[in-house]
């Protein structure tokens, strides 16, 4: 007779389909290379980078961080609901994730528009090249993620996902959290990192 313990012994697993973690890992390494490259370029002209950094809107950037963190939270709760077969909770949580993703896109678009109207674009100087490139590539990730979350929301309305059918939403969620954590680094890197 086995001993019954109150502690759950769950086998270790990666959420979603295994292959998504190859993608997440590769994307993380690629961004780390980009961060390194940014810092290398900054080393050549810290004064230029510092002066350009001052034109960025720190408050908006901080707000964007909170938006993405909230989005991740909503999606994480959605996955939890799936594990517990709480099918009617799923749609609003997934929609929450998609809507906050959309809010980020709108915020970023507004920020870019402001920059362009001040005559600042990727060609202006090395800092702006990096700012637009890094946030731009990240924004593409956000758009893709928001689209996927919207797709999940639609399917969840039909009760597609439960504890036995959650590989796709878990994969999307894992990807979405990557998008979130990349911004957690990007924001201080571009907006907050003061020079001495």
């Amino acid at each position, binding site marked *: 007779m086995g001993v019954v313990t109150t502690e759950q012994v769950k086998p270790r697993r990666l959420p979603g*389909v*295994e*292959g*998504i973690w*190859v*993608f997440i890992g*590769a*994307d993380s390494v*690629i961004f780390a*290379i*980009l961060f390194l*490259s940014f810092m290398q*370029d900054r080393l050549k002209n810290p004064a230029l980078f510092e002066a350009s950094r001052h034109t960025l809107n720190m408050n908006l950037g901080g707000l964007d961080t909170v938006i993405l963190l909230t989005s991740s939270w909503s999606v994480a709760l959605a996955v939890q609901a799936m594990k517990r077969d709480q099918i009617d909770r799923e749609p609003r949580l997934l929609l929450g994730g998609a809507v906050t993703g959309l809010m980020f896109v709108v915020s970023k678009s507004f920020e870019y528009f402001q920059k362009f109207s001040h005559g600042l674009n*990727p*060609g202006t100087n*090395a800092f702006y*090249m*990096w700012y637009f*490139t890094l946030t731009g*590539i990240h924004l593409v990730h956000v758009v893709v993620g928001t689209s996927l979350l919207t797709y999940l929301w639609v399917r969840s309305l039909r009760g597609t996902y439960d504890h036995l059918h959650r590989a796709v939403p878990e994969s999307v969620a894992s990807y979405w959290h990557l998008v979130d954590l990349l911004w957690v680094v990007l924001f201080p890197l571009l907006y907050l990192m003061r020079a001495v």
Partner: protein
Amino acid sequence: MAIHAEPPTVTPARGLAPYPTDYRSWKILAWTGPVFLFAVFCLWGILADNMPPFPASATPVEVKEHFQEMRPRLLIALSICLTMTAFYMSFCVATARVMERIEGPGGILSKLEMMGGTITCAPVMTTMSIWLTAAHEVNNLSPEIMHMLYWFGWFTFDLAYFVTSFQIAAISIVFMRDKREKKLVPNAVSWWGWITFASFFVVSAIPFVTTGPLAFHGVISFWIAFFTWFIWIPALSYYIIKAIPRLQAEDAAAGRLND
């Protein structure tokens, strides 16, 4: 309810070769992939000194001087690379045949792969020819023409990426659909294919910048875009080469070997 006659064999027709297969030639063609990769790496990468390439920000005079300095090396590296690019085409044919064993004979994605891979050879060969000509003729040409030829090569080489994207997408889709318990090509390689696919798009920025990460010699357009592919191809080649004896064994087990 059967509405047509039972097939003559019990094994599913789609999974086996419907025609006699020359496994040896197939395997040789699969090996041309790594041979091509090795040649390009050594010749274009090392001998022609393209890791990283001479910068996009170089002036016409700097480009001419670079080609003059490198002339003998370039004549050797680029001429051989041009000819050996055909090995990529042969590799793609071998790959298409492996894909057909999952998709079914005449499958559209294996056709797309073969076309995508073969057509990839065109911009590569053309680029090698452009730079070879530039190197050959450098002492007769003005710096402006040299600069133009240098950029002509890079635009041709880089911006035709989408034929390769189609090839990669077709490969990843088919191999992810493989129903074998141990897939012929593991999912990790297919997912890396998607990373490679995604990494190509940013290269479209090269006409607009000469410095920074998006320039054709920069961190993103060169190091990341090229090396995702440079990692994908050997990984894929390894499994394509290994797949052929596996498929031969499957054919043998089903009594379908053409002895």
